Structures are given as structure tokens and as C-alpha cells.
């Protein structure tokens, strides 16, 4: 007898439909699995056989063929286990799967249905493909139920599922997971109020948050670069529903959604170590590439501490995502595109020993070494970082006497207002404005245009540097609630650059 059950495999943030067909026929008892299955899928034969037996169901003592269609598509992962088991069970005894239903789940040898990664992504895609009912591991049911209009059946074990299909034994569908935004009144882990002094860097962080600009902090060890960077998420608005969904999808793919709280409203903050590989940062792996840190930082902050210590090719690979807000990676399985719209915050020492320009300790690096160090950062990457600020070390004895600044909640009010202005005017943040739109949306007062032109003439700004200052000036004006960019906004924007490091 023949039974057909639907499932899917994931290719990045897309799901590909897979039809699992099981046929039991007379002949020598054997189990064939065909349809371009990768090793992880071939192993399913053993899992499925044991799971069915140990669930008290009969495994067909016949010639059994399971086909994964379309057969020309390579299938990986363990999410097809449940669909295979159901198909085999139904092929033995007869029975039909309800229309427009799909099955996802890995099997344990005792028949339990185990967690698989990417259920949220699969659920969203299957809904789009016209499916109405999805059988998922009980552990992932809440995640799948985030997708509105999809009936989610939580599956504990194979016996339960088969009993439900054959005899109509009820399994209560998972109620829709209502992702209502929680008002975030939590105490911030990193509050700007705790930072003494550093007015320039604080202001730069505010501007970065308001306009979505990338930020580079340069300063000696212990000057508080990391602490400043960690304050950034606290002055950003919480995620919008669509954004939170995007974040959850990437986390789902990586199996990183916290149980019981599939939607997180706080903006991601990712701080990978500088030893990270290309695949780790950008995304990669065999078959279909899995998302890297830049995609995990989507709609949030990517913090790269010790920027100059990162491998040069890894840093170069950041250029495309910084420009486009997404990354396309091609591996043997095919190309996948992941979102990577993040605010980059980078921190660096001014030289290898770290003390160049410090008021107390002397730098021990030779000029050639400093030059080589700074050159690692120069060029195309720095050209894409709108705000560049030097951070000075405050000696410990003076730290307490330095004034504290405003608390994050106060700064956040201004940031929110500035972001609202930008979204109302142009539908995106200033950092994403292309030069052509900049001309239309960011009118310069005649005086401020002159300042910008004088500066680029004297200091030799590149076209990119010119637009960079223009965008930052737009944000400075937005923070002030001003539609026109005045001279002071341009001058402030021109101040955010490092003489030594930047082009």
C-alpha cells in the first residue's frame, strides 16, 4: 500500500516542500530509502525503524520503499523523520493524512518526537505554500504557533500521532502564540548614567542610535570603549513586530530560541571574539550556508572589539552587508540570502601597544608599526563607518570626579523622536540614505553647504566621506528637531572622524 505525507527541508530562510512516499510491497523484508538523502537523512532509516517498533506499532515485514520527492533535490537534516514514520505506519495499515498538513520532527529510538531547528521558518513558509496544519515536536509548538492562521499540532511521540490520524484521537492544537510587545521597563544592564565623562563618545553613541550610523571608537585600553558600546542597545527602541519576527527566524534556524519566550523584543547585541572565522561572522558551512553573527545581529548591534585584530579577509567581507543590509552566500547546496541590517560598533586601540596619544603612558611602537596597524583598518571598511571618535582614558583617581551624564532613558527619548522624524520623512534611517535621496531629503542651508565644500576642498574628502558627513549632519539636525541642516550640524558631523586613522 502507498502513503504520502508532506514535510519540508530548509534552504536558508526558505522552506522547500518534500513529499515523503512510503510503499510496502510483497517481497524480501528490506527498507530502501531513495530520493537524494544526505547522510543525516539516511540514518533516519535506523531511527524510524526503532521508533516505530518501540511505539508498539508494527514495522512492515515487507519490501519497504521510502521516496523523498522531488528526488533531484538534496535533503539534509533530521526534520523528515516524523513524516517518514507516519508514512510507513500508514502504508502498513492504511489511513490518510488530512489535507494540507505537513510534519516536522526528529525521532528518538523510543518513538519520542524531538526538537528540530528552524521550525518557525518552516511554519512561515509552509503557511505561504498553502498548508493549514503543521505537526511539530511538542517542544517547538509554541514557536510554530507564532504564525497566524496555522493549526499547530504538538507531537509528543509517534504512537500518539498515528493514533490521532487513524482513530481520530484528539491532540489539542497549540493556541496561537500572541506576541504582544512587552513594555520594557527592565533595569538596563548597561546604563549611560554609569559612565563618567566621555561626553564626545556619549554624544556619538546617541547620534549612532538616532540615525543608525556605524561607529568606531578608538582609544587606549581601559578607556571604556566596551562599556560605551554596550550602552547602545539600551537607547534603541524595542523591536517592531516584523523585526522581532526576523530576529526570531534567524535564531530559530540556529536552534537558539529560548523555550517559553520565542519572541524577544530587545535588540540583538552580538559581540564575537576577534578570532572568529569568515563562516562564523558572515555565515557559511556546507550544503546551505547557515547564518553568521552579522545575521544574528540583524536589527541590532554588532560589536567588534579589537577591530584591527580580526583577520583582514573577514573584515573585507563585511563590506557588502554594510552596504546592502543583507548577505548572499553560495555553498554547494546553493545560494542563500540572509538579512544583515545591523549597526556596527567597532573598537580599536590606536596602535599595537595601545597607548598612542595617552597623556600618561608613552607608546612604545615605532612609527612604521603604528602605520601598518592603522592601515589594516583604513580604506573601504572605514569609509563605511559614519562616526569615528577618539576615546581618552580617564585616570582612575579622577574617575569619580568626572561628571556623570544623562541616563539612558533620557537619551532614548531623543533618539526615539529623531527616528520617528526620519521614518515619517523617508521611511528609513539616515544611515541608509543613498546620495540621490540625500539630495532630495536632506536640504543643506547655503552656509552649511559651503562649509562642507570648503572642508572637502581643504582636507581632501572623498565623495563617500562627503556623503558620510552629510548623513550625520542630517541626524544631528533630526536630534534637534530641525528640518533644515544648519552650519552647526555639518560642523559637528565633520568632527566625528579620526585624523590619524581615517581616510
Amino acid at each position, binding site marked *: 500500500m502507498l502513503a504520502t505525507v508532506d514535510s519540508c527541508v530548509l534552504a536558508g530562510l526558505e522552506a522547500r516542500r518534500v513529499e515523503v512516499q512510503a510503499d510496502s510491497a510483497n517481497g524480501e523484508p528490506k527498507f530502501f530509502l531513495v530520493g537524494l538523502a544526505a547522510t543525516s537523512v539516511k540514518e533516519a532509516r535506523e531511527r524510524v525503524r526503532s521508533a516505530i517498533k518501540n511505539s508498539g506499532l508494527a514495522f512492515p515485514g515487507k519490501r519497504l520503499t521510502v521516496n523523498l520527492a522531488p528526488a533531484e533535490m538534496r535533503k539534509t537534516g533530521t526534520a523528515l523523520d516524523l513524516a517518514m514514520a507516519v508514512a510507513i505506519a500508514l502504508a502498513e495499515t492504511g489511513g490518510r493524512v488530512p489535507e494540507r498538513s505537513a510534519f516536522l520532527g526528529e525521532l528518538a529510538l523510543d518513538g519520542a518526537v524531538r526538537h528540530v531547528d528552524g521550525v518557525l521558518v518552516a511554519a512561515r513558509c509552509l503557511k505561504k505554500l498553502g498548508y493549514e496544519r503543521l505537526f511539530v515536536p511538542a517542544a517547538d509548538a509554541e514557536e510554530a504557533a507564532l504564525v497566524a492562521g496555522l493549526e499547530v499540532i504538538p507531537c509528543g511521540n509517534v504512537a500518539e500521532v498515528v493514533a490521532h490520524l487513524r482513530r481520530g484521537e484528539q491532540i489539542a492544537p497549540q493556541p496561537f502564540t500572541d506576541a504582544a510587545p512587552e513594555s520594557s521597563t527592565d533595569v538596563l544592564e548597561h546604563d549611560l548614567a554609569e559612565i563618567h*565623562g*566621555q*561626553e*564626545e*563618545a*556619549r*554624544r556619538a553613541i546617541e547620534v549612532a542610535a538616532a540615525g543608525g550610523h556605524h561607529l568606531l571608537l*578608538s*582609544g587606549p585600553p581601559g578607556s571604556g570603549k566596551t562599556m560605551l558600546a554596550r550602552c547602545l542597545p539600551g537607547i534603541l527602541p524595542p523591536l517592531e513586530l516584523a523585526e522581532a519576527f526576523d530576529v526570531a527566524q534567524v535564531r530559530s534556524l540556529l536552534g537558539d530560541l529560548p523555550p517559553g519566550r520565542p519572541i524577544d523584543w530587545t535588540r540583538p547585541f552580538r559581540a564575537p571574539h576577534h578570532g572568529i572565522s569568515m563562516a562564523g561572522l558572515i555565515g557559511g558551512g556546507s550544503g546551505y550556508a547557515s547564518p553568521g553573527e552579522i545575521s544574528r545581529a540583524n536589527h541590532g548591534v554588532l560589536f567588534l572589539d579589537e577591530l584591527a585584530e580580526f583577520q583582514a579577509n573577514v573584515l573585507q567581507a563585511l563590506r557588502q552587508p554594510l552596504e546592502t543590509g543583507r548577505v548572499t552566500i553560495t555553498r554547494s547546496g546553493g545560494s542563500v540570502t540572509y538579512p544583515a541590517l545591523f549597526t556596527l560598533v567597532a573598537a580599536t586601540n*590606536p596602535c599595537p601597544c595601545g597607548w*598612542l*596619544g595617552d*597623556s600618561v603612558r*608613552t607608546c612604545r611602537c615605532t*612609527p*612604521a608599526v603604528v602605520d601598518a596597524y592603522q592601515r589594516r583598518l583604513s580604506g573601504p571598511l572605514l569609509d563605511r563607518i559614519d562616526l569615528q*571618535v*577618539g*576615546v*581618552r582614558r580617564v585616570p582612575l583617581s579622577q574617575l569619580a570626579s568626572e*561628571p556623570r551624564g544623562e541616563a539612558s532613558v533620557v537619551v532614548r527619548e531623543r533618539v526615539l523622536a529623531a527616528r520617528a522624524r526620519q521614518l515619517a520623512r523617508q521611511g528609513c534611517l539616515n544611515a541608509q540614505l543613498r546620495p540621490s535621496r540625500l539630495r532630495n531629503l536632506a536640504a543643506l542651508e547655503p552656509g552649511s553647504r559651503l*562649509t562642507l565644500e*570648503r*572642508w572637502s*576642498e*581643504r582636507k*581632501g574628502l572623498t565623495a563617500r566621506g562627503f556623503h558620510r558627513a552629510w548623513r550625520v549632519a542630517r541626524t*544631528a539636525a533630526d536630534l534637534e528637531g530641525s528640518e533644515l541642516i544648519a*552650519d*552647526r*550640524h555639518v*560642523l*559637528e558631523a*565633520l*568632527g*566625528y572622524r*579620526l*585624523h*590619524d586613522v581615517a581616510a
Partner: protein
Amino acid sequence: MTSPPDLGSLNARGRWPPPDGPRVAIVGSRRPSPYGEAVAEQLAADLARAGVIVVSGLALGCDAAAHRGALVGGGVTIAVMGTGVDIVYPAAHFRLAEEILAAGGALISQFPDGTSPRRHNFPARNVTMAALSDAVVVVEAVQGSGALITAEAALHLHKEVMAVPGSIFSPLSVGTHALIRDGAGLVQNARDVLAVLGVGREVLDDPLKAPKRLGFELPGERDGILIHLSDVLTVSAAELARKLHLPISEVLGRLTSLELDGAVRRHGAGYVRALRRAKERA
């Protein structure tokens, strides 16, 4: 102490031997403070205006500032190199070397063509600088600096040794202050050097005599912020904002505006007052 090479056997590019006139070596740290860099440039410019040929080593920092100053002053300048004359080191000074040649100066070296930069060649070059000059002015030098080798060689060769004082808080003043303590002439302006050389008397009556040129020229007051800046130590925008109770965004803007006018300069993460209006780019 290495003895100086036979001056007739030097390799040269450009005009060599140089025109007649007093020759003064201006040497100093490769990583000077903003003050030292400004002093070297200003001093060289004023000396060049008085007809002095400025000798230096084409290195980073004070050396380059001295060559630049001499060019600004419309004078002839000689770069004594620690490499072959066909190799400009550091490479970043390629344009400076071209400008020196274009202005009628020379690049000279005791090393054969093709000699690449070697650590042990530079002390010998420093001695040559002393041998070529009538006086040596040290601008800023930490203890053990190569500039002090030039000064010592000058002493041995019975040339005048002079030094510019600096801040007592700066390690860059240790070498120069030690020289002054040991009897080197004190340099506060170009006149001090010219007096020791016994030249430029007629020139002294002209451009250098104007009262404002007695010391170094300060830019005209443009913005009240300027008086809160130092020409030796860097001050950060944050410190200024705190001191003046102004929003940081405004301070940043005003500093940038002053920078645009050439009245202040960036140095590391802070700002210093520029001693002279920066030469406008062509």
C-alpha cells in the same frame, strides 16, 4: 663617535654643492609633540627667509617639519639621508623629497645608491649632518634620541649646538634641556640662531624685527574657545565642554570650524592650538 665621511665623496641628487650661505641643521624627535613640530617648521621658515640653508634628515616628525618650513620660507634645504639617494625613506616623504629638489635643494647620502634603510646607518648619517652644518638646533629629543648624536658630533667638530626648550612635563624635553644645562645655546626664535651665526644682521632689521614676530605668531582670536586650548598639551572636546558648560555637539562644531580655519589641529583624540595658520592646500 664615528668620524664624518669625506664631504667631497657624498652622493647627491639636486643642486650639489649647495649655494653659499650659512647652514643650520634642525633635528629632533621622529614623534614630536604638536609643539615640537610647529617649532621646527616655524624656525626653519624664519631661518630660510633670512637666507639660511636648512639641513635635516628627511625623517618623520621634526625633520620633515624643518624641510617643510624651509620650503614655506622660500629657502634651499638639504636632506641628508640614511639610505641611498635613490631610495626615499620613509616612502611617505616621496613628495616632500620632490619638492626639496624642485626648490633648488639636494638629497645627499654617504651611502651608495640602492642602500636600503638599515638601523646602523642612521647614526652615521646624523654625524654627517653635523659635519655639513655650521650649527645644530635640537628641537625635541627624548633621552638617547638620534638628534643627540648629531649634537654630540657637532660638539666634537666644534660646531655650534643649540636647543629649543620645551615643557618640563614632557619626556621630549629631557634631551634638549640636558643640552641647555650643559651649555648649548638657548633657542627661542630664529634671531637667537642668526645671532650665534653672526649673520643676517641686515635681515634682522626687516621681517624678523616686527614685534609680533619676536616669538611665534599666534592666530588672531576667532573664537573664545581658543584661549582654553594649549599649544603643547592636547585637550579633548569633552574636557572643553565640561569646562565651558557647553553642549558637546556645539563644542565639536566650533572646534571643527576652527580646524577649518587652520587655527586648531587634531592630535590623537584631542585638539591643540596651531601656532601658525596651516598652509592652505593648493
